[in-house]
């Protein structure tokens, strides 16, 4: 079977249909977009890792689990799911763009993906240690991310203003002043030795501004892991 002369057919088609080459800048722009997209995705993911760690410290949702099953709903509401979800999308986008790079097929891509995810998490942790929130929360677009205080549906986190018998007055994180009262059935996993100025968290049923607590515990705010011990020269002691 004779092979048709493709060269003539190709050149004829190029001339008849006025087919032209894509200009060089098309490919240069494509490369820039790829690099830009990769950078954006990974920087966003690293920032979100820092933000997740910050919110976990501030809201300490895991502390609610100390109350057992009743603490599960506030845990789910307080956990920073949306930041985790967006971080997941950012990482997925970055990995998708990484696959488009010239070098990616030469290596085991599962390994590249694993190393990328670990690097993003570790970098986010290291960035978090340097407390970027202190500068970023002054910027108006960022303020909401750092200062947002979720109103408690059936819980409150705040500072004790006054102690009176089996009740305390507390200023919550969202600025409200509420009263928390307890009785014999209230869970007190860390005892009832409360002090003015102490941070506590409680959950229960609201009646106006009074929370009939099913569980109360002291503290619950986590400390930031630091690269350097507190009090080291140039590094203040760890606070938010």
């Amino acid at each position, binding site marked *: 079977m004779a092979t048709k*002369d493709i*060269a003539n*057919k*190709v050149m004829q*088609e190029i001339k008849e249909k006025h*087919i*032209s080459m894509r200009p060089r800048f098309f490919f240069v722009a494509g490369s820039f977009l790829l690099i830009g997209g990769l950078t954006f995705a990974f920087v966003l993911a690293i920032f979100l890792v820092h933000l997740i760690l910050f919110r976990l410290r501030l809201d300490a949702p895991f502390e609610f689990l100390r109350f057992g099953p009743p603490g599960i709903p506030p845990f789910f509401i307080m956990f920073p799911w949306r930041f985790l979800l967006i971080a997941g999308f950012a990482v997925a986008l970055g990995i998708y763009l990484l696959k488009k790079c010239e070098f990616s*097929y030469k*290596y085991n891509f599962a390994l590249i993906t694993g190393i990328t995810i670990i690097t993003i998490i570790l970098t986010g942790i290291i960035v978090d240690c340097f407390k970027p929130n202190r500068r970023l929360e002054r910027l108006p677009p960022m303020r909401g991310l750092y200062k947002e205080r979720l109103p408690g549906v059936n819980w409150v986190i705040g500072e004790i203003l006054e102690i009176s018998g089996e009740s305390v007055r507390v200023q919550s994180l969202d600025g409200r002043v509420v009263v928390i009262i307890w009785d014999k059935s209230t869970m007190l996993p860390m005892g009832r030795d409360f002090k003015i100025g102490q941070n506590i968290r409680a959950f229960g049923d609201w009646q106006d501004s009074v929370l009939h607590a099913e569980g109360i515990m002291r503290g619950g705010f986590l400390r930031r892991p630091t690269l350097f011990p507190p009090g080291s020269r140039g590094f203040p002691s760890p606070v938010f």
Partner: protein
Amino acid sequence: MQEIQKVTDEELVELVRTKDKEQYRELVARYQARLLRYAGYLLNDAEAAQDVVQQAFIKTFINLHGFHIKKKFSSWIYRIVHNEAINYLKSKKNEVLTDSLFLGNVVPDTTINNFEEIIIKKEKRQILLVSLEVLPIVYRAPLTLFYFEEKTYYEISDILRIPIGTVGTRINRGKKYLKKLYLSKGGKYYGH
């Protein structure tokens, strides 16, 4: 004319891009036979292979500025033909089977004189080629590139965009699969 034939593929690409688009004809002429052969092995269909290769050459022309001059043009254009062939297969959903006459005529064998040997060798080759036709494309492509197109593992890695280790794995698995098919179709194994 003779001068243009001495120019490397990469230099010819640069010439087409910057000075004379007509020289693209020379580039097509250099590659049409081998790309038709490769596409034929992938698609098992002479007509489809012609269309795929022609389309691949058009796409290559359109994207010529996207070729990095320091890379190998051969690997790049094989990659384009491979992608076009895969797209064709996907559009057809089922792999087109058996135009074994096409495959049988690809490599004329003129090395043996004995009539009986010719018959035996032709039968063996037919069995092998028919076995190749039914091999899954994931093995068929690297086997074809290695044995028929005489590409190195490195080049096959660039064409198929898989790690070099995976190239070796697929070739070995393809050979085992092929041997099994060959024996099941009545081929005799001479221990090589």
